[in-house]
């Protein structure tokens, strides 16, 4: 398949971000870019990156197969990643994963049948850096915090019905291909999306305590001079 003119234009914009002569730095974003058009990194996607950067297909494949987020098979509309690392697992992530897997009838890195409505690809994720919100799952990498098996099931059922459940942090959900364009480094162009998603209580816990007890660090003077070597 040939890639759209837009993808070719975007590839040029990606390369232009890096210092002259360092085009290869664009490879990771370009792999996200081809994934944003096709939903996975296909053989054609490998070829596109190789041709664009003057690399061999083998060089590009070596990189594409190293990273978990580059999918080698078509991904569903919704990539549901349930964290089953230690903290989430202990607090209920394992049960959530099992519940979702049982409901969808698919296992790790498997995708539901298109006859069953919007397609969902399931995976269990290693630590998603949200232990203070554990257990968590993500849909197309947007976080749903403090879930349990029941809440996880409710989220996937909504997705199956064509609804878009609201993530805890970050904005409205967008499709896998749209999120991959953002991973290639392009801005989220949806009106107001950048501002959506309030900080949760765990993020603010320490600050709330400090505010409640009127605690501030004393002695802060922004005019404190920067000592110059010549002054010493």
């Amino acid at each position: 398949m040939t890639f759209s003119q837009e993808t070719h234009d975007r590839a040029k914009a990606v390369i232009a971000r890096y210092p002259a002569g360092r085009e290869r730095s664009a490879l990771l974003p370009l792999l996200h870019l081809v994934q944003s058009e096709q939903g996975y990194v296909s053989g054609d996607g490998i070829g596109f990156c190789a041709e664009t950067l003057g690399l061999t297909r083998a060089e590009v494949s070596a990189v594409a197969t190293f990273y978990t987020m580059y999918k080698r098979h078509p991904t569903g509309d919704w990539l549901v990643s349930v964290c089953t690392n230690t903290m989430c697992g202990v607090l209920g992530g394992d049960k959530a994963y099992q519940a979702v897997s049982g409901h969808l009838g698919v296992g790790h890195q498997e995708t539901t049948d298109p006859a069953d409505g919007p397609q969902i690809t399931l995976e269990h994720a290693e630590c998603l850096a949200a232990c203070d919100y554990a257990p968590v799952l993500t849909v197309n990498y947007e976080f749903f915090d403090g879930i349990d098996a029941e809440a996880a099931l409710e989220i996937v059922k909504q997705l199956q019905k064509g609804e878009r459940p609201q993530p805890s942090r970050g904005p409205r959900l967008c499709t896998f291909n749209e999120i991959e364009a953002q991973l290639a480094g392009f801005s989220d162009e949806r009106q107001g999306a950048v501002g959506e998603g309030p900080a949760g209580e765990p993020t603010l816990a320490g600050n709330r305590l400090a505010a409640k007890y009127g605690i501030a660090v004393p002695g802060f003077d922004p005019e404190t001079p920067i000592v110059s070597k010549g002054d010493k």
Partner: protein
Amino acid sequence: MSAPSQAALAKLTPVVTKRWLSPDAWKIDVYERLDGYAALRKALKARPDDIIALMKDSGLRGRGGAGFPTGMKWGFIPQDPPGDGGGKPPGKPHYLVINADEGEPGTCKDLPLMMADPHSLIEGIVIAAYAIRAHFAAIYIRGEAVHAARRLRAAVDAAYARGYLGRNILGSRFDLDLVVHSGAGAYICGEETALLDSLEGYRGQPRLKPPFPATHGLYKAPTVVNNVETIATVPFIVLGGAEWFKTMGTEKSPGPKIYSISGRVNNPGQYECALGITLRELLELAGGMRDGHQLRFWTPGGSSTPMLTAEHLDVGLDFEAMAAAGTMLGTTAVQVFSDQDCPVYATYRWIEFYHHESCGKCTPCREGNYWMARVLRRILSGQGTVLDLDTLLDTCDNLLGRSFCALGDGAASPVVSSIKWFKQDYLDYIEGRTPPMFAAEELAGAH
């Protein structure tokens, strides 16, 4: 749940996190109203070497886990001839790379920072780049963190529009370009040389050191790699000065630090405290253990830091005291587990993580984690033998100090420490006193 004691409250030091409560602090207008970019204006009037000296004087140590002195790291970059302040350096260009590849199990401080206050990171980047004479900087952010990357990209665009990035920043004749570069799901890219390879468009595998990034980093040029929190701390030191900064923390671990407490506590979350706070005090701040839960084991700074027990409630969470207790401060990701949690299971899960994330470059880590995950699964399935404990410890002997990078060393931590403190838990599975935790097929680990 009782109120925290005065002693615990006295350890709270809202500095780097102080804007997080302000609504929309991520917007540049709000950030500017809250003293944003004041440090940059101040720094650009100083000589770059004086900024480096200020960081050295402050005693700031890297917040990414290793605790290397930041000013010293900046000072390793080959410097311009005297008198050339801020001009384009001769020879190879210099680079600044921000490690935002947060992913160590337990660690969750940099993503909320970039969500709540992305401009503090950007301001720190411009100051740091000015100090080390870099004109290109990159933030390597974990791929999965799209929510934080989205806000960061918007903040970078806003900073360009206001003249805080780009050509002739604030009329200083200093130029800086900043790129936000999303990763693609590889924990190993948090290792600084693997990160650099990844940023250059290769598989993220660590490089042999030396040479170090200070001389042969990004594109084989002098490079500083710093953690998000480290750089976000810089503007506050520029404003408040080294002496003020050292009023917090301990003599060798000065300053405030974001502690991320998770697990069986009432109020998990981010608590910015003076370095050296104890777990007992942190637990008070976090509302104590949940009802019905007794502290059993905990990590001071993520899964790669050997676990501690209730015996260590009063050990200071700073670099020196943690080392003296046989562990490491790491990323101050304090994961709290109770008597209802199984240390063998926790260890198994972490080793599945290291097995998945091992880059495969060196044999001890690639093979060691593969086999340790299987041995642990066998034990948890009630099919282990006493010799399995020797196999695990022997494997760890071959990992620790013999792996190519710290990922392999880190994998030994949970295994060795859990066997040290909780050998009986292992034996109870092996000798049938504890029923198998899961049937083998229910363990969703290997992939």
